[in-house]
């Protein structure tokens, strides 16, 4: 077991330092790059916070859908394969719900401000 602060607390501390203390000092192209860097750290913080929970739920859904066991990567590969072969499609009970839930969890990490995501969030998903 590793000591604390946790990775989440550490990346957040760096992001806040860059945002609050360094941003006012920098301009032009370097300011643009700094914004990208802060966005990356914020994304990493979101992923560290949410990934374990969303992966567990995804694996649960995939096991029910596919009737097999495996890691989240293996199960995604299996689902991709079955869709490619036409064995599973949008008529398959649970597929659309699974893809929606998984995609919403990804957007929550990648781009929580993306307009399509915010619209779909408003639908209660």
């Amino acid at each position, binding site marked *: 077991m590793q000591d604390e602060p946790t990775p989440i607390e550490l990346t957040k501390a760096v992001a806040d330092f860059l945002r609050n203390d360094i941003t006012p000092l920098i301009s032009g192209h370097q300011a643009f790059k700094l914004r990208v860097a802060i966005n990356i750290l914020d994304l990493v913080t979101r992923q560290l916070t949410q990934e374990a929970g969303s992966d567990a739920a995804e694996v649960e859904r995939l096991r029910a859908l596919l009737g097999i066991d495996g890691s989240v990567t293996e199960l995604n590969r299996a689902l991709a394969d079955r869709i490619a072969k036409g064995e599973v499609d949008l008529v398959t009970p649970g597929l659309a719900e699974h893809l*929606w839930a998984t995609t919403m969890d990804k957007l929550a990490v990648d781009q929580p401000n993306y307009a399509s995501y915010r619209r779909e969030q408003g639908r209660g998903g």
Partner: protein
Amino acid sequence: MIEAKLSRSVQRWCPGATGVTGAAKLSGGASQETWRFDIVHPDGTIGAILRRSPKGYGAAPTRAAGLAAEAQLMQLAYEAGVPSPRVMHVLIPEDDLGTGFIMQRVEGETIARKILRDEEYAAARPLLARQIGGILAGLHRLPLDKLPELRSRSATQEIAEFERDYRSLNWPKPVFELALRWLRDHDPGPSVETTLVHGDFRNGNLIIGADGVRAVLDWELAHLGDPMEDLGWVCVNSWRFGEIDKPVGGFGTREELFAGYETAGRKVDPERVKFWEVMGTLRWGIMCGGMMQRFREGPDHSMERAMIGRRASETEIDLLRLLAPRGS
């Protein structure tokens, strides 16, 4: 260094020009660079843009038409009244600047978010969807016998090419698989008519002023194919920059786009446009995967490229909104 070479070049083909000033690199990709500079002339300076592949750079990627073709297309468009920069000079070996061309600089804005939000463009915005329809009609009417050598792509070939690109990424994505199946099931077959297709006509590749579209840029993905491809691509959600209820670049409705196109005397096939919008959404998603790969394997290890890799999921939600919409 580049200013000295540009100075010598302009004095050869621009009568009266005495040199150039203010050369600055605007962007540099793996195989192409864009520079802005001013031609010094007794009648007043002339704003100019250089687009070139520096000497010793590898061949352009296979999908690209090449700079010579790009120059020819822009000139043809300009002569036909399609808003386009005037090509002033195609580079020759004596210029010692590599391959490419020099065009007249068109003032205006290309940054999509500014065009969608700034007050300066408020009056132009509601007119743009319709105007874009008219411009695309003009572009699709450019005479085939005057076009440079271009690759030709049908919908069927494009699906196969995207599938190959996607599989080469070894990146299992159930939503992309679903989209590929949908595309194969809805392949509209050969287009009744083959025309010039711009290939990257979207908000971000247009120079816009308070008076509307001033120039169409980035012709490097031009090819021959189904004209409806351009109408679908301009509607891809990623090019609406947050204005998701205005499908045409965040400016307006499909109906306005179609009306502009049909008023200019060409016919729209809305089913095909929808097909190409789905195709375009998947295309951008696979391009994000390509960015991830280039970040990971080099040569471009930039943070920006890494972050574009994480934009693939935006195309997944947009594909689901198109193919498996949820009730409101």
